[in-house]
């Protein structure tokens, strides 16, 4: 297509497009032994983009007023053409984002890509993880159903255990003593504007750090010893003789994204009720607490931990300690060895910790 070539040349003359393509795409080399887990990052980007798009579409018809919110969501689900599809994509997508994020975190942990010089990448990623939890929590309230109302009440109540500032913190979060219209107002602002902006900024930082440091080499499937980093001067980790990002790994990214879509669409069309209880379709009633309110699956472990410890403060502290440990892992674990098979202590902690989280979640579901 001569026209396309002429267009490309025109752009190239002005911004040096060919040079950019060579540097970022065809000339951007990745380690030969790269595996599929490395594509989860781009899957997360696509999920985030979809959440933003579906969220914006929902905002066209959703009304963030306690009297009207539930009815507006019912209208979207029943009267608007394909409103149900947009809403379900958004709801299922938020759960998928947490699930894929956990897989991304686990694979990074397992392959030790959090180690020097990638500490900042891990820290930004960890902050992103907490922000995603925050955006899920705030979004959950917006339909103003019985489930939304009471799950938010339970979740915000847990902060009351913090000594001294606790009860004031709870009231500040809610905008009033109990969950009510002021809560909806601030949660909406957080969910729609504040948190997405911060997430977008942090994703930018996360990607910049990734590009600047260079992709890590997976610690298995290669005969050469992994390049060890020496803290003398900044050095980009290059992979001479490696696989070009475009088109080779870009195609892997696209494959993973397509597989994600297959699973995602299967849930949207065939099992949307996996994530909704009947209480999600009853308007919020501040005077009637349903008997079996539980948080979403990704908060079940936290919920169960609070139930185990006799003192709520102790339960909160244990969780805070665990999160802090995870956040500061690159500064705690300084051994340069990356192959998990050669690090039995790490492997035991990794598998044990993961199974503990699963166990607590299952227990939380049945308790």
């Amino acid at each position: 297509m001569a026209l396309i070539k002429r267009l490309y040349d025109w752009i190239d003359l002005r911004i040096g497009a060919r040079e950019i393509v060579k540097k970022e795409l065809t000339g951007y080399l990745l380690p030969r032994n790269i595996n599929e887990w490395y594509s989860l990052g781009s899957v997360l980007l696509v999920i985030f983009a979809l959440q933003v798009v579906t969220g914006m579409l929902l905002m066209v018809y959703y009304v963030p007023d306690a009297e009207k919110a539930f009815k507006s969501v019912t209208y979207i689900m029943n009267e608007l053409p394909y409103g149900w599809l947009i809403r379900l994509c958004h709801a299922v997508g938020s759960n998928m984002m947490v699930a894929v994020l956990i897989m991304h975190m686990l694979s990074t942990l397992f392959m030790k890509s959090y180690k020097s010089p990638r500490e900042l990448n891990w820290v930004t990623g960890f902050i992103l993880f907490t922000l995603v939890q925050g955006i899920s929590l705030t979004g959950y309230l917006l339909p103003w159903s019985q489930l939304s109302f009471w799950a938010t009440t339970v979740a915000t109540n847990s902060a009351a255990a913090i000594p001294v500032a606790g009860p004031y913190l709870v009231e500040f979060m809610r905008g009033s003593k109990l969950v009510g219209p002021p809560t909806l107002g601030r949660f909406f602002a957080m969910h729609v504007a504040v948190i997405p902006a911060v997430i977008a900024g942090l994703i930018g930082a996360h990607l910049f750090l990734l590009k600047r440091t260079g992709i890590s080499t997976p610690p298995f499937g290669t005969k050469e010893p992994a390049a060890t980093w020496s803290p003398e001067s900044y050095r980009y980790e290059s992979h001479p003789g490696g696989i070009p990002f475009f088109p080779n790994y870009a195609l892997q990214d696209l494959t993973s994204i397509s597989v994600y879509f297959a699973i995602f669409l299967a849930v949207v069309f065939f099992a949307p009720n996996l994530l909704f209880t009947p209480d999600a379709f009853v308007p919020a009633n501040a005077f009637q607490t349903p008997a079996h309110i539980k948080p979403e699956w990704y908060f079940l472990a936290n919920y169960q931990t609070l139930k185990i410890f006799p003192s709520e403060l102790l339960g909160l502290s244990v969780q805070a300690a665990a999160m802090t440990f995870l956040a500061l892992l690159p500064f705690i674990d300084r051994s340069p060895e990356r192959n998990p098979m050669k690090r039995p202590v790490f492997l035991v902690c990794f598998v044990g910790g993961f199974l503990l989280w699963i166990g607590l979640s299952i227990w939380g579901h049945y308790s």
Partner: protein
Amino acid sequence: MENDGRRKFLGVCLAGATAAAAAAAAYPVFRYLAPRSDQQGSNKLEFAASDLPEGEAKFFEYAGSSAVLVKTKAGELVALSAVCTHLGCIVQWEKDKQDFLCPCHAGRYSPDGAVLSGPPPRPLAKIPVTSANGKITVG
């Protein structure tokens, strides 16, 4: 190279498949955002004014559920949904009291639908009604 031939074929298939996927995604979004044609107001009902004496109510079906037309002793004409806002029973007109009573849990409404007593949380929904040339038009 044999690979080249394969790549070209796959490239064509992929281009087609992605175009189809993009169209399949764009269509619902377009329908979702497109302004909707006015669906209500197309079904109107007519009654002869003589059918409805003063102080009486006439029950009929409108838009799939029960509705009632009332001509109060003061001469006012009101059309309301006859579905009680409590749990859904059909309200009854009490000629002697000139109000609506729901037989299920004794919810009471004034002739213009306002809640007088009992469990109903909201007034009876109003339906537009006009009267001209001895004809009453509902909707």
